[in-house]
């Protein structure tokens, strides 16, 4: 370890001995580090290691129980985001902080002027935003309403918000978790431009190749403590993973698949977001769906989940055409669904683990009988899932809100896999998870495949698709490419299809 946390001569930012407790839990434990001008510092750590908490303290959302934050030599008053903003700190939060029904420009302007001024000066602001967009490569329509923007565009707005306020230090909390590879590349381009202009960046991600690609230095948190700091050039992905988890991580290595009978078939289906799509999911096979987000993945997931019905074409399960298609039918037909957003659709935050574990099966024995809940039965079921899927939690009576994303995901996985589904829809199953959890989830999907399930894996991470899938489809503007067997396509080839090329010739 060549780089020590406190080695800078003239740091733009200095954190001293930051400690933060939530009740009995110490989320940050005496953390100190410096940030130099023009540096990209990556912050690594498992889910719940305390990264977001630390950044929230730095930005003034939380006040630390101990320690201080200095920006350009000035100590920041605790608990005042306004002070951090004025001092030149800009933050892009893990969960975006945008008002969805307002325009880009209004979101950027918010809070930048004295509240008591007459007039908003939108004209001048628009010009300034346009200039910033150009300088930093952040293309976005200033008059668009946020709700109409893609995730990547929203992120650009978040960065523009910081730049508009002349931020000198940019904090990005898991900015790439929801981005497509292309968008990630664009983001990195922006960050490089920013650094070139003398800004400093703190970058949080669970994706080690990204950390390797963009950062100059890496700090690693574990259980709230700073456990390591290295210059990026002196390390590699394996070493970083080991520092994070404390043990070596073995990435999944799929064995050869033995495809079986078709379990689910789409015959020229059209829905709100799909155009004339035909697809066959076979037993014992993982079908990967690659594509730039927003090209119909959601529509396909909704269709298989039972939330949408075909407008034209048919959906066949084990040879039978379905009618009256609802989520309940989908579950009954043996489709296990891992939703894209575990917070919004996958779980009910204020339900306990037990209640969440039976969300899809509450009406069945042993969870209930004749409309009467059997809470003992339900709890036993939850306990079984907790034990088998190694969910870290105080117990089945804990509200799921208190679990980390990885553990939440394990519960969903357990809830789905315990039903021995014939078909599994896995929509972004590892988004936002740390590397340990990612490996765990992927191995579970492979196991399910090996025991004969048909898996549809939707992901924007091409590496993940290429590693896990036995056949790959690309989706673009609601159309589906032909199936490409494992090993027949390179990332660049897929990229062409993702950009929409080739579809003219496809069926």
């Amino acid at each position: 370890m060549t780089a020590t946390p406190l080695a800078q001569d003239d740091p733009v930012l200095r954190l001293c001995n930051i400690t933060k407790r939530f009740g009995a839990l110490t989320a940050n434990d005496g953390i100190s580090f410096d940030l130099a001008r023009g540096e990209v510092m990556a912050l690594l750590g498992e889910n719940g290691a305390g990264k977001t908490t630390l950044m929230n303290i730095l930005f003034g959302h939380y006040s630390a129980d101990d320690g201080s934050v200095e920006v350009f030599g000035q100590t920041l008053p605790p608990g005042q985001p306004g002070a951090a903003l004025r001092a030149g700190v800009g933050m892009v939060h893990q969960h975006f902080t945008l008002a969805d029904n307002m325009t880009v420009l209004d979101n950027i302007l918010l809070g930048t002027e004295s509240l008591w001024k007459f007039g908003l000066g939108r004209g001048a602001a628009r010009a300034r935003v346009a200039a910033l967009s150009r300088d930093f490569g952040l293309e976005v329509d200033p008059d668009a309403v946020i709700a109409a923007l893609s995730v990547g565009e929203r992120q650009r707005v978040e960065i523009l918000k910081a730049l508009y306020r002349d931020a000198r230090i940019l904090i990005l909390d898991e900015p790439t978790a929801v981005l497509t590879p292309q968008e990630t590349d664009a983001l990195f381009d922006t960050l490089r431009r920013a650094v070139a202009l003398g800004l400093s960046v703190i970058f949080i991600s669970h994706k080690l190749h990204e950390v390797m690609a963009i950062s100059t230095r890496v700090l690693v948190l574990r259980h709230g403590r700073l456990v390591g700091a290295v210059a990026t050039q002196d390390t590699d992905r394996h070493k970083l993973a080991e520092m994070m988890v404390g043990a070596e991580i073995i990435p999944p290595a799929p064995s050869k698949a033995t495809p079986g009978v078709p379990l689910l078939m789409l015959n020229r289906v059209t829905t709100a977001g799909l155009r004339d799509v035909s697809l066959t999911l076979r037993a014992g096979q993982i079908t990967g769906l690659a594509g730039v987000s927003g090209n119909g993945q959601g529509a396909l997931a909704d269709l298989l989940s039972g939330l949408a019905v075909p407008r034209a074409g048919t959906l066949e399960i084990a040879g039978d055409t379905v009618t009256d298609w609802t989520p309940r039918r989908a579950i009954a037909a043996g489709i296990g669904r891992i939703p894209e957003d575990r917070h919004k659709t996958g779980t009910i935050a204020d339900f306990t683990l037990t209640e969440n574990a039976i969300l899809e099966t509450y009406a069945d024995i042993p969870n209930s009988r004749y409309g009467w809940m059997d809470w003992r039965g339900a709890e036993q079921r939850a306990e079984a899932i907790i034990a088998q899927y190694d969910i870290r939690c105080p117990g089945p009576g804990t509200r799921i809100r208190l679990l980390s994303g990885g553990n939440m995901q394990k519960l969903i996985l357990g809830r789905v896999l315990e039903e021995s589904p014939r078909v599994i829809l896995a929509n972004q199953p590892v988004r936002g998870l740390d590397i340990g959890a990612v490996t765990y989830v992927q191995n579970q999907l492979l196991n399910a495949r090996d025991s004969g399930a048909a898996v549809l894996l939707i992901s924007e991470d091409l590496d993940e698709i290429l590693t896990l899938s036995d056949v790959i489809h690309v989706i673009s503007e609601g159309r589906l490419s032909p199936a490409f067997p494992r090993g027949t396509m390179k990332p660049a080839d897929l990229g062409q299809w993702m950009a929409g090329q080739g579809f003219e010739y496809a069926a």
Partner: protein
Amino acid sequence: MNEIVDILISASFWAAILRIASPLIFATMGELICERAGVLNLGIEGIMVMGAFAGWIAVYAGLPLWGGVAVAMLSGMAFGLIHAVLTVPFGLSQHVVGIGITLIATSSAYYAYRLSLPEVTSPPRIEPFQPVDIPGLSDIPFIGTALFSQTPLTYFAFFTVLVVAFVLYRTPLGLALRAVGENPSAVEAQGLSVTALRMGAVIVGSGLMAVGGAFLTLSAFSSFFFEMVNGRGWICIALVVFGAWSPSKAMMGALLFAGFDALQVRLQQTSFGAMVPYQVFLMIPYILSILALVLMSRRANVPAALMVPYNRGER
């Protein structure tokens, strides 16, 4: 049918609409400000009662009429402060606090009235605002009588709509207010205080509601009566939704509602009115409001964070 046309072409009918709409407009703007900032203020009915009382008693005690309006506004702001403290930093249920405020403001006004005037058996009167002709405009035939021969408070009500619309859409403060009703974290992330903005909105909004109440005692009428607000506050809550949280549309809603009220009163005297139970006329504005809501529902843009308390550090 002729009778209805007669009503519609009489200038005094249109003048009545503006008059009846005035208190609704004040209170609707007040509620709109609160809801735009994310707080449903069910205290409106009681705050209007308090405003009606406070404004009136101040004038009765010797203050000029505009002094009464100011006192009413302050009284509304005081109850707004209680509402704001309980619902914003403490994040208590906006339903309970609102109903509690309505109860406490109403009964406090009654209690204070009885304590200050224990002996009266007939409500004392003050000299209320008189209609003021606007020079030039009020001489225009028909329009002059219909629109420009109102009491100053009515003109003030429409001026308030302009101010509210201007502030909401054309100033940094309005931008922040709208944002805090859409997504408080967005506001906090930009260095503004969610608490201060929301509390400010509730306090100022409540002040306007109270002025709406004071209109009843200082302009529409000259004495304070128990129960004289008579559900007008609840109507305003509907008007805000009806107006899809936009000041100008909400004002149109108030005018429409007042229109049906004015029409209702006049229809009762027609031959048609004699055939239909008077309750049917009284019902019309409510039924139309619901119908309008049904028609508007798809386009309504509810402030996304309405009724959601914000606690920093909680997700």
